[in-house]
């Protein structure tokens, strides 16, 4: 079972969910192989024919309402080829989940016009996505947003993609053909009982489609004012009698945005990505999935030599590369009696040079899970995990790590039981045990309660959970020059930040209350409120000054990471989905966060220098998906993000528009405008030595062809 499904596992309608471990599927080898053979032999002939037919089809399609068609007249083979929209499946599966979940569907993704994962996440209410420059983002959920946000866990097909050097995500490393994403599940609030440390403020889980669903060819080409080149070539086919595969190559070239002054910035980036996925039915009760990627990024950034602006700062353009790859394998097995096991392993590696620090990371992970129904009332999931991170961070111009190379081992075990107390009440208890090299053994428990009577359109849920953020290498071993302050004609103060090997886990105790409802047949609502108590939050404490000899004389002001800060946050998120007509869907969302960050009682001097505290108090969005005709889509989105508390930047709004038209059954052309409100917008400003740029108004066009 994919990691991110564990929380919602029991509430899914797993029969409809291909990523769920199920009794799967060796689909009639006879049928499918002969059908495939027929398809192969006939393909050449069928291309021109199907083009002609496609036109005829569309004409026929327009005149017939699918609901009026008497499907019982179709025979079984035809029925098996009918494409089914299952509006019910996701909503039903979510109805009983005791967590604040928002699902970004493939349709949302396609119609957003976004060209990268970061921009897709804007669609989830409560997720703050801020562009620092064209290839760096600050993304967080429920507070603490910065370039190096460290309280959200991100997974792709069960593979953790956060970086153990700072427990955050290099968003520009994440990319895939967006057409291949099945859905993105965004869970706001802690998920630590299932996913473990770092699933503190949220879990973002990306699921790609099975290769069964991406058979045939796909080619996309696009160009525009900001997205200079966009190209994708993919092919999916059969692998033997019971397997399928897809392979793809993708290239994206994004041009420079604008500096604060409005001139052309230096934040161009180009990305190449190749990948494959293969899915196999080994037997009626065994499935195997193998997935791999290789990517290479070339990025430009404007940097300053220190974290903080000072007269001694120098600005320079830095061009750097990042490259990496991963290989994931997952074996799902259904035991007699219907219980399901999943064994997953992956290897992931990247190298990059950030702030002059050459970094190499290698991760190996092994994960086992068993999902079993006990009696009529208990639904149990338990699992064991092991992960090894080997990281090497050599000295750079602004910072260094000590020790430069390190291997960390993580061991974990979890169990969660969902108990049906009565016809309408479910009670879920779970705990995760985790051992890490910094803070030893930890427990992360949670309790969840759901009320959802059969046939009711209303669901109420409540949850109480504890989550931890484990120290990362940055917290324990960094040495970074923060600022240089002139102190007289021949002396200068140097502020330097030091990691602390005795740093504690950051701890969250979180209480949530949620309500979901289908208010009418066309309008649904999801509302959540939360109250969060953080303690042992990381702050920086000024240590006694030291004099470093030399000319000019340097007065060293050491700052040490400590765990003395705390915070009380409360807020909520609201999202609505309104199918105004069969052709028009409108989805508004709103989120509110009130954060009070407190220094610890023993703090002094520069303490509480709030490294991680930025988050807008209010965010608002409306998306509208409109089918102008059967073949023409016109989609609009508006995102508004209020001013960050204490920051000087004003709030900012963003409008994206997309117009797309299908040409026959196989081709589509689209035009997308992004950031249309203003010629240039500052979203975030500078962050940790990166000099921010302005997002610019842009337009691109693209053509998609399936073959």
């Amino acid at each position, binding site marked *: 079972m994919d990691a991110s499904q564990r929380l919602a596992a029991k509430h899914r309608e797993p029969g409809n969910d*291909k990523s769920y471990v199920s*009794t*799967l599927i060796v689909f*009639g080898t006879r049928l499918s192989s002969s059908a495939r053979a027929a398809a192969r032999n006939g393909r050449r002939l069928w291309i021109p024919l199907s083009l002609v037919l496609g036109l005829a089809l569309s004409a026929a399609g327009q005149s017939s309402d*699918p*609901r009026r068609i008497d499907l*019982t007249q179709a025979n079984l083979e035809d*029925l098996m080829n009918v494409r089914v929209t299952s*509006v019910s499946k996701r909503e*039903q599966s979510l109805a009983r989940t005791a967590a604040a979940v928002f699902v970004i569907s493939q349709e949302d993704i396609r119609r957003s016009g976004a060209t990268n994962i970061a921009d897709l996440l804007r669609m989830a209410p409560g997720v703050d996505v801020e562009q620092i420059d064209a290839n760096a983002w600050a993304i967080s959920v429920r507070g603490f947003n910065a370039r190096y946000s460290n309280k959200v866990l991100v997974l792709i097909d069960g593979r953790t993609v956060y970086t153990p050097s700072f427990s955050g995500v290099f968003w520009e490393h994440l990319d895939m053909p967006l057409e291949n994403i099945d859905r993105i599940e965004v869970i706001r609030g802690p998920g630590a009982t299932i996913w473990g440390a770092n699933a503190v403020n949220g879990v973002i889980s990306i699921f790609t489609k099975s290769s069964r669903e991406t058979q045939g060819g796909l080619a996309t080409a696009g160009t525009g004012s900001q997205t200079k080149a966009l190209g994708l070539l993919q092919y999916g086919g059969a692998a033997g009698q019971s397997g399928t595969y897809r392979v793809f190559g993708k290239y994206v070239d994004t041009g420079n945005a604008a500096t604060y002054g409005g001139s052309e910035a230096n934040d161009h980036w180009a990305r190449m990505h190749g990948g494959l996925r293969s899915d196999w039915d080994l037997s009626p009760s065994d499935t195997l999935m193998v997935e791999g990627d290789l990517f290479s990024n070339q990025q430009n950034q404007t940097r300053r030599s220190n974290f903080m602006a000072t007269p001694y700062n120098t600005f320079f353009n830095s061009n750097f590369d990042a490259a990496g790859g991963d290989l994931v394998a997952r074996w799902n097995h259904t035991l007699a009696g219907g219980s399901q096991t999943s064994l997953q392993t992956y290897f992931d590696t990247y190298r990059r040079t950030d702030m002059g620090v050459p970094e190499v990371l290698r991760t190996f992970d092994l994960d086992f899970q068993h999902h079993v129904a006990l009696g009529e009332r208990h639904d149990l999931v338990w699992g064991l995990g092991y992960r090894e991170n080997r990281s090497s961070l050599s000295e750079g111009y602004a910072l260094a790590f000590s020790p430069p190379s390190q291997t960390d081992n993580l061991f974990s075990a979890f169990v969660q039981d969902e108990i049906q107390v009565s016809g309408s009440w479910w009670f879920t208890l779970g705990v995760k045990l985790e051992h890490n090299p910094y803070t030893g053994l930890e427990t992360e428990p949670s309790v969840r309660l759901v009320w959802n009577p059969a046939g009711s359109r209303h669901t109420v849920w409540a949850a109480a959970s504890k989550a931890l953020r484990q120290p990362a290498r940055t917290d324990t071993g960094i040495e970074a020059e923060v600022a240089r302050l002139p102190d007289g004609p021949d002396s200068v103060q140097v502020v330097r930040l030091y990691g602390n090997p005795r740093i504690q886990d950051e701890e969250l105790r979180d209480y949530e209350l949620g309500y979901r409802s289908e208010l009418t047949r066309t309008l649904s609502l999801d509302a959540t409120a939360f109250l969060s108590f953080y303690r042992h939050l990381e702050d920086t404490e000024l240590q006694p000054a030291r004099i470093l000899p030399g000319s000019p004389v340097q007065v060293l002001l050491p700052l040490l990471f400590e765990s003395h800060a705390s915070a009380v946050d409360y807020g909520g998120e609201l999202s609505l989905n309104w199918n105004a007509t069969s052709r028009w869907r409108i989805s508004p969302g709103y989120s509110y966060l009130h954060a009070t960050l407190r220094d610890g009682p023993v703090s002094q001097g520069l303490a509480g220098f709030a490294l991680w505290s930025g988050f807008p108090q209010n965010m608002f969005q409306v998306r509208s998906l409109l089918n102008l005709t059967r073949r023409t889509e016109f989609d609009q989105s508006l995102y508004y993000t209020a001013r960050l508390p204490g920051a000087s930047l004003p709030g900012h709004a963003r409008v994206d528009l997309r117009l797309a038209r299908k040409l026959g059954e196989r081709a589509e052309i689209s035009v997308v405008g992004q950031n249309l409100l203003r010629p240039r917008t500052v979203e975030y400003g500078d962050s940790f030595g990166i000099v921010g740029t302005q997002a610019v108004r842009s337009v691109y066009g693209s053509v998609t062809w399936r073959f």
Partner: protein
Amino acid sequence: MLKRLRFAALAGLTLVLALQGQFDEYHVKAAFLYNFAKFVEWPPQTFKTPQDPIVIGVLGPSSLRKTLEEAVSGKAVEGRKFAVRELEDGALRCDCQILFVASSERRRFRSMAGGLRGTAILTVGETPGFAAEGGVINFKFEGDRLRFEINVDAAEQEGLRISSKLLSLSQVVRK
């Protein structure tokens, strides 16, 4: 004759064309249920008279019963019409030939399963493990297309004869 052939071809083509669209899950499942009835033979004592309808029991929301009723109204298999019944709360048995169990009602089905055994009911579910747990037919998704698995041992226990055609299109589960 030629005219009739042409008409049939045309009707067939229209249907094929129409099937290119996307359909609601339960409309398609309803059509599958109708087809299952064509390819399953119940034990001779199941029907008292040749006019007895094939009763489809529904464990699930009322909307589902309506969808099924619309789909099979006026239809017949070997002269038998269809009737659709929603199972009331707490019912432990089902006076039906086909029982559709929505995924939301799987727990209820488990509590009924003992009472249903040996009553020659074609149970149809839509949850993983349904067939492995003794259900006869189970729907599953392969992408956005529907597939089904058949537990041939369960069918045999219920005295149901499933045609080889249906089996050839299904994934066979044994238990």
